[in-house]
């Protein structure tokens, strides 16, 4: 017991002394992912950034897992197959509980892939204190070779775009193009105003105009909220994981021994939650888009779906 304590204290003192005597270069905290020097795919002018490289590693990990767990499936599962089945079955149950049995098979692959991809890239972020120290040195600063994809806006924005575009696609597929567009450019109330004005329909012309304008305005708000979705999706993930990375980089500078552990635990949790939120929000938006919106009861619609809250 005492021996362990003494050894620990000596190690701690050594680390502090080494840090003071040989200050090794630290990676700067940058929002943009750094391109690895000299690595450019020429034809399309694509600089290979450290986060792109890590994205590929995450993909390889996931595909490796799929190859390892998804092969030789037997009716009576063992070990790895149990893990794969638990994962797939649990996620499918979640998708089905939100989207219902009709749309679950369509939503499941996208939602699950988002969850797994984001989860792996979030958890790669846990290695930041190690990753940040491995890289090329340039002007006394380190360019790390690896960097969690979730701390690269290209990655999160790409996922957000896929999520929102697929939401529109499923909305159109389920409601038809005109009905779905009617949600954004809502002319029903104004048409009703003209019908009232020309006497084809009974009612208060002023009230009809007022309601029609409100409906039209709400449609415009929905357009804004669709665009805001992209921003909030991408910056939510980016902000959370980037903040976690900064935290994990800064804490070891304050005290590099034992203290970072609780933060690593916190970041594990945050990574899981963020992956979950990204997937579940995508799922929720998709299921909302597939629900047919009827009538001009904007009050009911506003109460039933939170999607005109600017997200």
């Amino acid at each position, binding site marked *: 017991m005492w021996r362990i304590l003494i050894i620990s204290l000596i190690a701690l003192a050594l680390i502090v002394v080494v840090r003071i005597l040989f200050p090794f270069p630290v990676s700067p905290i940058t*929002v*943009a992912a750094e391109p690895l020097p000299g690595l450019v795919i020429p034809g399309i002018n694509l600089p290979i950034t450290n986060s792109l490289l890590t994205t590929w590693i995450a993909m390889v990990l996931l595909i490796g897992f799929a190859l390892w767990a998804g092969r030789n499936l037997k009716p009576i599962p063992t070990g790895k197959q149990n893990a794969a089945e638990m994962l797939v079955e649990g996620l499918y149950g*979640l998708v089905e*509980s*939100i989207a219902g049995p009709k749309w679950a098979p369509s939503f499941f692959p996208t939602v699950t892939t988002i969850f797994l991809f984001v989860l792996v890239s979030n958890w790669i972020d846990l290695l930041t204190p190690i990753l940040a120290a491995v890289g090329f040195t340039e002007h006394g600063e380190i360019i790390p070779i690896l960097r969690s994809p979730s701390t690269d806006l290209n990655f999160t924005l790409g996922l957000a775009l896929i999520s929102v575009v697929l939401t529109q696609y499923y909305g159109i597929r389920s409601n038809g193009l005109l009905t779905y567009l009617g949600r954004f450019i809502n002319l029903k109330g104004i048409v009703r105003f003209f019908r009232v004005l020309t006497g084809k329909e009974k009612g208060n012309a002023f009230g009809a105009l007022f309601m029609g304008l409100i409906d039209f305005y709400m449609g415009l708000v929905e357009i804004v909220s669709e665009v*805001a979705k992209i*921003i*909030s999706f991408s*910056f*939510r993930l980016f*902000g959370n994981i980037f903040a976690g990375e900064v935290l994990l980089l800064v804490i070891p500078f304050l005290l590099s021994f034992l203290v970072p552990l609780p933060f690593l635990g916190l970041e594990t949790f945050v990574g899981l*939650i963020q992956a*979950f*939120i990204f997937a*579940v*929000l995508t799922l*929720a938006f998709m299921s909302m888009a597939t629900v047919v919106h009827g009538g001009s009861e904007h009050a009911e619609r506003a109460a039933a779906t*939170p999607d005109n*809250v*600017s*997200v």
Partner: protein
Amino acid sequence: MDINSARLLASGLAIGLGAIGPGIGIGLLVNGALQSIGRNPEAQGSIQINMFIGIAFAEAVAIYALVVALILMFVIS
């Protein structure tokens, strides 16, 4: 105060002040969710999912503050 210090100060203030509202909001949300789980433990699954969705909406506001802070920090110079 030169422009750089103003920029840094604004950036800090943006995220700091912007986080207050969402913080309160998330607190209220989780409060409500936990109370409902306490009253009706069978509904835990759906309450949790809806809680997370609500938290995400509340957090979006903090994210706007974060975006503004990042823009102040890195884009405007």
